[in-house]
Protein backbone atom coordinates (compact mmCIF):
# COMPACT_ATOMS: atom_id res chain seq x y z
CA UNK A 1 0.00 0.00 0.00
CA UNK A 2 1.43 3.40 -0.94
CA UNK A 3 1.95 6.08 1.68
CA UNK A 4 -0.68 8.19 -0.07
CA UNK A 5 -3.27 5.42 0.14
CA UNK A 6 -2.47 4.82 3.80
CA UNK A 7 -2.86 8.50 4.65
CA UNK A 8 -6.06 8.69 2.57
CA UNK A 9 -7.41 5.83 4.70
CA UNK A 10 -6.59 7.81 7.82
CA UNK A 11 -8.36 10.87 6.37
CA UNK A 12 -11.47 8.81 5.62
CA UNK A 13 -11.39 7.36 9.13
CA UNK A 14 -11.05 10.84 10.64
CA UNK A 15 -13.97 12.12 8.60
CA UNK A 16 -16.33 9.44 9.83
CA UNK A 17 -15.27 9.90 13.47
CA UNK A 18 -15.15 13.67 13.90
CA UNK A 19 -17.71 13.50 16.67
CA UNK A 20 -16.12 10.48 18.34
CA UNK A 21 -13.44 10.60 21.00
CA UNK A 22 -10.59 9.61 18.69
CA UNK A 23 -6.86 10.29 19.02
CA UNK A 24 -3.91 10.45 16.67
CA UNK A 25 -3.17 6.83 17.63
CA UNK A 26 -6.55 5.79 16.21
CA UNK A 27 -5.76 7.67 12.99
CA UNK A 28 -2.38 5.90 12.78
CA UNK A 29 -4.09 2.57 13.30
CA UNK A 30 -6.49 3.32 10.42
CA UNK A 31 -3.42 3.81 8.23
CA UNK A 32 -1.80 0.64 9.61
CA UNK A 33 1.27 2.66 10.60
CA UNK A 34 3.15 3.06 13.85
CA UNK A 35 2.36 6.34 15.60
CA UNK A 36 5.81 7.79 14.91
CA UNK A 37 5.90 6.76 11.25
CA UNK A 38 2.31 7.93 10.74
CA UNK A 39 2.93 11.39 12.15
CA UNK A 40 5.98 11.86 9.97
CA UNK A 41 4.31 10.67 6.75
CA UNK A 42 1.04 12.50 7.47
CA UNK A 43 2.84 15.78 8.07
CA UNK A 44 4.88 15.29 4.91
CA UNK A 45 1.84 14.73 2.69
CA UNK A 46 -0.98 16.72 4.31
CA UNK A 47 1.21 19.60 5.58
CA UNK A 48 -0.66 19.63 8.86
CA UNK A 49 0.19 17.46 11.83
CA UNK A 50 -2.47 14.77 12.40
CA UNK A 51 -3.67 16.50 15.57
CA UNK A 52 -3.83 19.91 13.86
CA UNK A 53 -5.79 18.37 10.98
CA UNK A 54 -8.26 16.69 13.36
CA UNK A 55 -8.81 19.95 15.26
CA UNK A 56 -9.21 22.01 12.08
CA UNK A 57 -11.70 19.57 10.61
CA UNK A 58 -13.73 19.58 13.81
CA UNK A 59 -13.70 23.38 13.94
CA UNK A 60 -14.59 23.63 10.24
CA UNK A 61 -17.53 21.25 10.71
CA UNK A 62 -18.71 23.21 13.72
CA UNK A 63 -19.23 26.29 11.51
CA UNK A 64 -22.13 24.56 9.81
CA UNK A 65 -23.83 23.93 13.16
CA UNK A 66 -23.18 27.51 14.26
CA UNK A 67 -24.64 28.95 11.07
CA UNK A 68 -27.54 26.61 10.48
CA UNK A 69 -28.82 25.78 13.95
CA UNK A 70 -29.49 27.64 17.16
CA UNK A 71 -27.80 25.01 19.29
CA UNK A 72 -25.87 26.38 22.26
CA UNK A 73 -22.19 26.95 21.56
CA UNK A 74 -21.23 24.89 24.60
CA UNK A 75 -23.19 21.92 23.24
CA UNK A 76 -21.40 22.18 19.89
CA UNK A 77 -18.09 22.39 21.77
CA UNK A 78 -18.81 19.17 23.68
CA UNK A 79 -20.07 17.41 20.57
CA UNK A 80 -16.67 17.93 18.95
CA UNK A 81 -14.74 17.02 22.12
CA UNK A 82 -13.37 20.41 23.03
CA UNK A 83 -13.99 19.92 26.73
CA UNK A 84 -15.32 23.39 27.44
CA UNK A 85 -16.83 26.47 25.85
CA UNK A 86 -13.56 28.36 26.50
CA UNK A 87 -11.30 25.76 24.86
CA UNK A 88 -13.55 25.65 21.81
CA UNK A 89 -13.80 29.45 21.53
CA UNK A 90 -10.03 29.87 21.88
CA UNK A 91 -9.31 27.26 19.19
CA UNK A 92 -12.03 28.70 16.94
CA UNK A 93 -10.61 32.20 17.23
CA UNK A 94 -7.10 30.98 16.53
CA UNK A 95 -8.31 29.36 13.30
CA UNK A 96 -10.90 31.85 12.06
CA UNK A 97 -9.81 35.08 13.72
CA UNK A 98 -13.15 35.52 15.49
CA UNK A 99 -15.06 33.81 18.29
CA UNK A 100 -17.83 31.36 17.38
CA UNK A 101 -20.52 33.81 18.52
CA UNK A 102 -19.28 36.38 15.99
CA UNK A 103 -19.22 33.78 13.21
CA UNK A 104 -22.81 32.90 14.08
CA UNK A 105 -23.83 36.58 13.87
CA UNK A 106 -22.04 37.09 10.54
CA UNK A 107 -23.76 34.05 9.07
CA UNK A 108 -27.14 35.23 10.34
CA UNK A 109 -26.54 38.63 8.68
CA UNK A 110 -25.46 36.91 5.47
CA UNK A 111 -28.46 34.58 5.50
CA UNK A 112 -26.29 31.44 5.44
CA UNK A 113 -22.88 30.03 6.39
CA UNK A 114 -20.05 32.45 5.71
CA UNK A 115 -17.45 30.76 3.55
CA UNK A 116 -14.34 31.57 5.59
CA UNK A 117 -11.08 31.19 3.63
CA UNK A 118 -9.44 29.18 6.43
CA UNK A 119 -12.25 26.62 6.38
CA UNK A 120 -10.66 23.20 5.90
CA UNK A 121 -12.78 20.79 3.84
CA UNK A 122 -12.25 17.03 4.10
CA UNK A 123 -9.04 16.36 2.17
CA UNK A 124 -8.91 13.56 -0.38
CA UNK A 125 -6.32 11.37 -2.08
CA UNK A 126 -6.73 13.42 -5.30
CA UNK A 127 -5.96 16.59 -3.38
CA UNK A 128 -2.86 15.06 -1.78
CA UNK A 129 -1.69 13.78 -5.15
CA UNK A 130 -2.13 17.21 -6.70
CA UNK A 131 -0.38 19.32 -4.11
CA UNK A 132 2.53 16.95 -3.60
CA UNK A 133 3.52 16.54 -7.22
CA UNK A 134 4.59 20.08 -7.94
CA UNK A 135 6.40 23.13 -6.74
CA UNK A 136 3.37 24.92 -5.43
CA UNK A 137 4.03 24.14 -1.80
CA UNK A 138 6.58 26.85 -1.23
CA UNK A 139 5.78 30.17 -2.94
CA UNK A 140 8.18 32.93 -3.83
CA UNK A 141 7.44 36.48 -2.75
CA UNK A 142 7.08 38.78 -5.72
CA UNK A 143 6.41 42.45 -6.26
CA UNK A 144 3.56 42.96 -8.70
CA UNK A 145 3.70 46.42 -10.27
CA UNK A 146 0.43 48.30 -10.93
CA UNK A 147 -1.42 46.90 -13.93
CA UNK A 148 -4.65 47.53 -15.83
CA UNK A 149 -6.36 44.28 -16.79
CA UNK A 150 -9.10 44.54 -19.40
CA UNK A 151 -11.66 41.88 -20.18
CA UNK A 152 -14.98 40.41 -19.22
CA UNK A 153 -16.05 40.19 -15.62
CA UNK A 154 -18.86 38.39 -13.94
CA UNK A 155 -20.06 36.82 -10.75
CA UNK A 156 -19.11 33.17 -10.76
CA UNK A 157 -20.63 30.45 -8.64
CA UNK A 158 -19.83 27.45 -10.80
CA UNK A 159 -16.61 26.55 -12.64
CA UNK A 160 -18.31 26.47 -16.06
CA UNK A 161 -18.98 30.23 -15.77
CA UNK A 162 -15.21 30.85 -15.82
CA UNK A 163 -14.86 28.87 -19.06
CA UNK A 164 -17.79 30.83 -20.54
CA UNK A 165 -15.99 34.09 -19.80
CA UNK A 166 -12.72 32.95 -21.38
CA UNK A 167 -14.51 31.67 -24.47
CA UNK A 168 -16.44 34.92 -24.82
CA UNK A 169 -13.23 36.93 -24.37
CA UNK A 170 -11.55 34.88 -27.08
CA UNK A 171 -14.34 35.86 -29.48
CA UNK A 172 -14.13 39.51 -28.44
CA UNK A 173 -10.39 39.49 -29.06
CA UNK A 174 -10.99 38.05 -32.47
CA UNK A 175 -13.18 41.07 -33.20
CA UNK A 176 -10.46 43.43 -31.95
CA UNK A 177 -8.15 42.41 -34.74
CA UNK A 178 -6.43 45.78 -35.03
CA UNK A 179 -3.52 46.61 -32.75
CA UNK A 180 -0.95 44.57 -30.89
CA UNK A 181 -1.57 41.14 -29.42
CA UNK A 182 -2.30 41.16 -25.69
CA UNK A 183 0.88 40.96 -23.64
CA UNK A 184 -0.38 38.47 -21.08
CA UNK A 185 -3.61 36.98 -19.82
CA UNK A 186 -4.86 37.36 -16.27
CA UNK A 187 -7.74 35.85 -14.34
CA UNK A 188 -8.58 38.03 -11.35
CA UNK A 189 -10.67 36.60 -8.57
CA UNK A 190 -12.28 38.92 -6.09
CA UNK A 191 -14.10 37.61 -3.03
CA UNK A 192 -16.96 39.74 -1.71
CA UNK A 193 -16.89 41.04 1.85
CA UNK A 194 -19.84 38.86 2.60
CA UNK A 195 -18.49 35.44 1.71
CA UNK A 196 -21.73 33.59 1.77
CA UNK A 197 -21.68 30.55 -0.49
CA UNK A 198 -18.97 29.70 -2.97
CA UNK A 199 -19.22 32.63 -5.37
CA UNK A 200 -16.73 35.30 -6.39
CA UNK A 201 -16.14 37.88 -9.08
CA UNK A 202 -13.93 36.70 -11.93
CA UNK A 203 -12.31 38.89 -14.56
CA UNK A 204 -11.01 37.04 -17.60
CA UNK A 205 -8.68 39.63 -19.03
CA UNK A 206 -5.44 40.67 -20.59
CA UNK A 207 -2.82 43.37 -20.41
CA UNK A 208 -3.20 45.79 -23.23
CA UNK A 209 -1.74 49.29 -23.18
CA UNK A 210 -4.20 50.26 -25.90
CA UNK A 211 -7.24 49.37 -23.91
CA UNK A 212 -6.75 50.46 -20.29
CA UNK A 213 -8.64 53.54 -19.10
CA UNK A 214 -5.61 55.65 -19.91
CA UNK A 215 -5.40 54.23 -23.39
CA UNK A 216 -9.10 54.46 -24.13
CA UNK A 217 -9.75 55.69 -27.58
CA UNK A 218 -6.69 54.15 -29.19
CA UNK A 219 -8.55 50.93 -29.82
CA UNK A 220 -11.88 50.88 -31.60
CA UNK A 221 -14.38 51.51 -28.85
CA UNK A 222 -15.58 48.32 -27.23
CA UNK A 223 -18.47 48.70 -24.81
CA UNK A 224 -18.38 45.10 -23.66
CA UNK A 225 -15.07 45.25 -21.83
CA UNK A 226 -14.23 46.48 -18.36
CA UNK A 227 -10.88 47.38 -16.88
CA UNK A 228 -9.64 46.60 -13.42
CA UNK A 229 -6.74 48.61 -12.07
CA UNK A 230 -4.54 46.82 -9.58
CA UNK A 231 -2.17 48.81 -7.36
CA UNK A 232 1.37 47.93 -6.39
CA UNK A 233 1.15 44.59 -4.56
CA UNK A 234 3.46 42.24 -2.73
CA UNK A 235 2.33 38.73 -3.60
CA UNK A 236 3.13 35.14 -2.81
CA UNK A 237 3.59 33.41 -6.17
CA UNK A 238 2.39 29.81 -6.33
CA UNK A 239 3.05 27.76 -9.46
CA UNK A 240 0.01 25.78 -10.50
CA UNK A 241 0.24 22.95 -12.98
CA UNK A 242 -2.48 20.45 -13.66
CA UNK A 243 -5.94 20.78 -15.09
CA UNK A 244 -8.19 23.77 -14.56
CA UNK A 245 -10.34 21.40 -12.53
CA UNK A 246 -7.46 21.11 -10.05
CA UNK A 247 -7.31 24.87 -9.41
CA UNK A 248 -9.61 24.55 -6.38
CA UNK A 249 -7.04 22.17 -4.85
CA UNK A 250 -4.27 24.71 -5.36
CA UNK A 251 -6.44 27.52 -3.98
CA UNK A 252 -7.50 25.36 -1.06
CA UNK A 253 -3.89 24.55 -0.19
CA UNK A 254 -3.01 28.27 -0.25
CA UNK A 255 -5.83 29.38 2.02
CA UNK A 256 -6.46 26.58 4.46
CA UNK A 257 -2.96 25.20 4.75
CA UNK A 258 -0.22 27.60 3.63
CA UNK A 259 -1.74 30.69 5.25
CA UNK A 260 -2.33 28.83 8.49
CA UNK A 261 1.43 28.30 8.86
CA UNK A 262 2.80 31.36 7.06
CA UNK A 263 4.09 34.46 8.76
CA UNK A 264 2.17 36.48 6.16
CA UNK A 265 -1.50 37.35 6.12
CA UNK A 266 -3.79 37.98 3.14
CA UNK A 267 -3.56 41.67 2.19
CA UNK A 268 -6.68 41.71 0.02
CA UNK A 269 -9.55 39.27 -0.56
CA UNK A 270 -8.33 38.47 -4.06
CA UNK A 271 -5.97 36.40 -6.12
CA UNK A 272 -4.53 36.67 -9.59
CA UNK A 273 -4.03 33.87 -12.13
CA UNK A 274 -1.29 34.82 -14.57
CA UNK A 275 -0.51 33.14 -17.86
CA UNK A 276 2.79 34.61 -18.96
CA UNK A 277 5.00 34.66 -22.02
CA UNK A 278 2.16 34.76 -24.49
CA UNK A 279 0.52 31.75 -22.87
CA UNK A 280 -3.21 31.49 -23.43
CA UNK A 281 -5.67 30.58 -20.73
CA UNK A 282 -6.84 27.01 -21.08
CA UNK A 283 -10.12 25.95 -22.58
CA UNK A 284 -9.75 22.66 -20.83
CA UNK A 285 -7.13 20.02 -20.19
CA UNK A 286 -3.71 20.93 -18.84
CA UNK A 287 -3.04 24.39 -17.55
CA UNK A 288 -0.03 26.00 -15.99
CA UNK A 289 -0.17 29.40 -14.42
CA UNK A 290 1.12 31.46 -11.55
CA UNK A 291 -1.29 32.21 -8.77
CA UNK A 292 -0.43 35.47 -7.08
CA UNK A 293 -1.92 36.13 -3.67
CA UNK A 294 -1.43 39.62 -2.20
CA UNK A 295 0.20 39.32 1.22
CA UNK A 296 1.06 41.62 4.07
CA UNK A 297 2.69 41.21 7.43
CA UNK A 298 -0.70 41.52 9.11
CA UNK A 299 -3.83 39.50 8.43
CA UNK A 300 -6.68 41.18 6.59
Amino acid at each position, binding site marked *: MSQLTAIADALTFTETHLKDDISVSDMAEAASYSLYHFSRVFNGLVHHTPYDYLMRRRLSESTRWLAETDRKIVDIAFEYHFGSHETFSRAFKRMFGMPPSEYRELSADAGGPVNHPRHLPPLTADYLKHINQQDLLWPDPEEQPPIDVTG*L*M*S*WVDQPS*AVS*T*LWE*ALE*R*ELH*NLARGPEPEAFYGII*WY*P*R*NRRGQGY*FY*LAGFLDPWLG*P*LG*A*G*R*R*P*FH*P*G*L*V*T*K*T*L*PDLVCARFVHSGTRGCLPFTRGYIYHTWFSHASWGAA*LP*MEIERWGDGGRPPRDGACACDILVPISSTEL
Partner: protein
Amino acid sequence: MQPRIVDKERIMLAGVSFFGDPFAETGGWTEENEIGRLWKRFFEAAAGTGLACEDPKSASPILEVHVEGPEAAARGHREVFIGVQIDELDEVTIEMQVKNLPAVTYAVFTFRGDRITSDWSQLVTEWMLEEGYRYAYPFSFQLYDSRFAGLDQLESSEIDVYIPVARRENVPADGDS
Protein backbone atom coordinates in the same frame (compact mmCIF):
# COMPACT_ATOMS: atom_id res chain seq x y z
CA MET B 1 -43.45 58.92 -27.15
CA GLN B 2 -40.77 61.30 -28.37
CA PRO B 3 -37.35 61.02 -26.76
CA ARG B 4 -34.93 63.86 -26.17
CA ILE B 5 -31.86 63.81 -28.38
CA VAL B 6 -28.71 64.67 -26.43
CA ASP B 7 -24.99 64.59 -27.15
CA LYS B 8 -22.75 63.24 -24.39
CA GLU B 9 -19.00 63.22 -23.94
CA ARG B 10 -17.22 59.99 -23.01
CA ILE B 11 -18.53 58.61 -19.72
CA MET B 12 -16.20 56.80 -17.34
CA LEU B 13 -17.97 54.55 -14.84
CA ALA B 14 -16.82 52.69 -11.74
CA GLY B 15 -18.87 49.65 -10.81
CA VAL B 16 -19.34 45.92 -11.06
CA SER B 17 -20.41 43.71 -13.91
CA PHE B 18 -22.18 40.49 -14.80
CA PHE B 19 -21.69 38.51 -17.99
CA GLY B 20 -24.02 35.69 -18.97
CA ASP B 21 -27.76 35.22 -19.06
CA PRO B 22 -29.14 37.42 -16.28
CA PHE B 23 -32.59 35.92 -16.66
CA ALA B 24 -31.51 32.27 -16.56
CA GLU B 25 -33.25 31.72 -13.24
CA THR B 26 -35.88 34.44 -13.06
CA GLY B 27 -37.11 36.68 -15.83
CA GLY B 28 -38.27 40.26 -15.77
CA TRP B 29 -37.99 42.95 -13.17
CA THR B 30 -37.30 41.36 -9.85
CA GLU B 31 -34.62 41.67 -7.23
CA GLU B 32 -34.17 37.91 -7.34
CA ASN B 33 -32.42 37.55 -10.69
CA GLU B 34 -28.76 38.21 -11.52
CA ILE B 35 -29.42 41.91 -12.10
CA GLY B 36 -31.03 42.25 -8.67
CA ARG B 37 -28.05 40.45 -7.15
CA LEU B 38 -25.65 42.66 -9.09
CA TRP B 39 -27.27 45.75 -7.54
CA LYS B 40 -26.69 44.27 -4.10
CA ARG B 41 -23.06 43.54 -4.98
CA PHE B 42 -22.65 47.05 -6.33
CA PHE B 43 -23.85 48.57 -3.07
CA GLU B 44 -21.59 46.24 -1.11
CA ALA B 45 -18.61 47.26 -3.24
CA ALA B 46 -19.54 50.94 -2.96
CA ALA B 47 -20.17 50.83 0.80
CA GLY B 48 -18.05 53.39 2.57
CA THR B 49 -16.57 54.83 -0.61
CA GLY B 50 -18.83 57.87 -0.95
CA LEU B 51 -19.42 56.89 -4.58
CA ALA B 52 -22.97 55.66 -4.10
CA CYS B 53 -25.49 54.78 -1.46
CA GLU B 54 -28.86 53.07 -1.45
CA ASP B 55 -30.80 56.22 -0.57
CA PRO B 56 -31.79 57.55 -3.99
CA LYS B 57 -32.48 61.00 -2.56
CA SER B 58 -28.86 61.63 -1.68
CA ALA B 59 -27.06 59.43 -4.18
CA SER B 60 -25.32 60.17 -7.44
CA PRO B 61 -27.15 58.81 -10.46
CA ILE B 62 -26.50 55.10 -10.94
CA LEU B 63 -26.28 53.66 -14.44
CA GLU B 64 -27.35 50.12 -15.37
CA VAL B 65 -25.62 49.43 -18.68
CA HIS B 66 -26.64 46.52 -20.92
CA VAL B 67 -24.16 45.49 -23.58
CA GLU B 68 -25.41 43.02 -26.13
CA GLY B 69 -23.03 42.18 -28.95
CA PRO B 70 -24.34 39.96 -31.75
CA GLU B 71 -22.20 36.95 -30.82
CA ALA B 72 -23.05 37.07 -27.14
CA ALA B 73 -26.70 37.66 -27.96
CA ALA B 74 -26.76 34.52 -30.12
CA ARG B 75 -25.97 32.59 -26.94
CA GLY B 76 -28.44 34.53 -24.82
CA HIS B 77 -25.58 36.33 -23.10
CA ARG B 78 -25.17 39.99 -22.34
CA GLU B 79 -23.08 42.12 -20.07
CA VAL B 80 -24.77 44.14 -17.38
CA PHE B 81 -22.67 46.79 -15.65
CA ILE B 82 -23.89 48.83 -12.71
CA GLY B 83 -21.84 51.86 -11.84
CA VAL B 84 -21.54 55.56 -11.15
CA GLN B 85 -19.83 58.20 -13.21
CA ILE B 86 -16.35 59.22 -12.08
CA ASP B 87 -13.99 61.93 -13.26
CA GLU B 88 -10.69 60.49 -12.12
CA LEU B 89 -9.31 56.96 -11.95
CA ASP B 90 -8.26 57.73 -8.37
CA GLU B 91 -11.89 57.43 -7.38
CA VAL B 92 -12.06 53.76 -8.33
CA THR B 93 -11.80 51.47 -5.35
CA ILE B 94 -10.06 48.14 -5.74
CA GLU B 95 -13.40 46.34 -5.51
CA MET B 96 -14.64 48.03 -8.68
CA GLN B 97 -13.94 48.01 -12.39
CA VAL B 98 -13.99 50.79 -14.94
CA LYS B 99 -16.13 50.94 -18.02
CA ASN B 100 -15.89 53.63 -20.65
CA LEU B 101 -18.87 54.65 -22.73
CA PRO B 102 -18.15 56.55 -25.93
CA ALA B 103 -18.95 60.13 -26.81
CA VAL B 104 -22.14 59.69 -28.77
CA THR B 105 -25.63 61.00 -29.43
CA TYR B 106 -28.33 59.44 -27.28
CA ALA B 107 -32.07 59.21 -27.61
CA VAL B 108 -33.32 59.60 -24.05
CA PHE B 109 -36.67 58.06 -23.18
CA THR B 110 -38.23 58.87 -19.82
CA PHE B 111 -40.48 56.21 -18.34
CA ARG B 112 -42.78 56.59 -15.36
CA GLY B 113 -44.78 54.22 -13.17
CA ASP B 114 -45.63 50.81 -14.58
CA ARG B 115 -44.01 51.82 -17.87
CA ILE B 116 -40.63 51.31 -16.13
CA THR B 117 -41.15 47.57 -15.86
CA SER B 118 -42.96 47.15 -19.15
CA ASP B 119 -41.21 45.92 -22.27
CA TRP B 120 -40.23 49.29 -23.70
CA SER B 121 -37.65 47.86 -26.08
CA GLN B 122 -40.37 47.43 -28.71
CA LEU B 123 -41.34 51.07 -28.38
CA VAL B 124 -37.69 52.14 -28.76
CA THR B 125 -37.23 49.95 -31.84
CA GLU B 126 -40.37 51.32 -33.48
CA TRP B 127 -39.30 54.89 -32.80
CA MET B 128 -35.87 54.25 -34.35
CA LEU B 129 -37.42 52.71 -37.46
CA GLU B 130 -39.88 55.57 -37.88
CA GLU B 131 -37.30 58.30 -37.36
CA GLY B 132 -34.49 56.73 -39.39
CA TYR B 133 -32.14 55.95 -36.51
CA ARG B 134 -30.25 52.83 -35.54
CA TYR B 135 -28.08 51.78 -32.61
CA ALA B 136 -24.70 53.51 -32.87
CA TYR B 137 -23.27 50.93 -30.44
CA PRO B 138 -24.67 47.67 -29.09
CA PHE B 139 -25.49 48.96 -25.62
CA SER B 140 -27.99 51.04 -23.71
CA PHE B 141 -28.27 52.25 -20.16
CA GLN B 142 -30.92 53.09 -17.63
CA LEU B 143 -30.24 56.05 -15.39
CA TYR B 144 -31.52 55.89 -11.83
CA ASP B 145 -31.43 59.09 -9.80
CA SER B 146 -33.48 60.78 -7.08
CA ARG B 147 -36.61 60.40 -9.22
CA PHE B 148 -36.53 56.63 -8.70
CA ALA B 149 -38.09 55.66 -5.37
CA GLY B 150 -37.71 51.88 -5.65
CA LEU B 151 -39.36 48.88 -7.28
CA ASP B 152 -42.02 48.92 -4.57
CA GLN B 153 -42.90 52.56 -5.31
CA LEU B 154 -43.07 52.52 -9.09
CA GLU B 155 -46.08 54.83 -9.23
CA SER B 156 -43.94 57.69 -7.94
CA SER B 157 -40.80 56.73 -9.87
CA GLU B 158 -39.17 57.78 -13.10
CA ILE B 159 -36.10 56.58 -15.01
CA ASP B 160 -34.31 57.65 -18.18
CA VAL B 161 -33.28 55.13 -20.80
CA TYR B 162 -30.33 56.18 -22.97
CA ILE B 163 -30.01 54.64 -26.43
CA PRO B 164 -26.87 55.51 -28.43
CA VAL B 165 -28.16 56.42 -31.87
CA ALA B 166 -26.88 57.36 -35.27
CA ARG B 167 -28.73 58.23 -38.45
CA ARG B 168 -28.95 55.12 -40.57
CA GLU B 169 -26.62 56.55 -43.16
CA ASN B 170 -24.18 57.80 -40.51
CA VAL B 171 -23.01 54.96 -38.30
CA PRO B 172 -19.59 55.37 -36.66
CA ALA B 173 -17.25 52.86 -38.23
CA ASP B 174 -14.41 52.98 -35.80
CA GLY B 175 -14.89 54.22 -32.29
CA ASP B 176 -15.51 57.47 -30.55
CA SER B 177 -12.25 59.30 -30.81
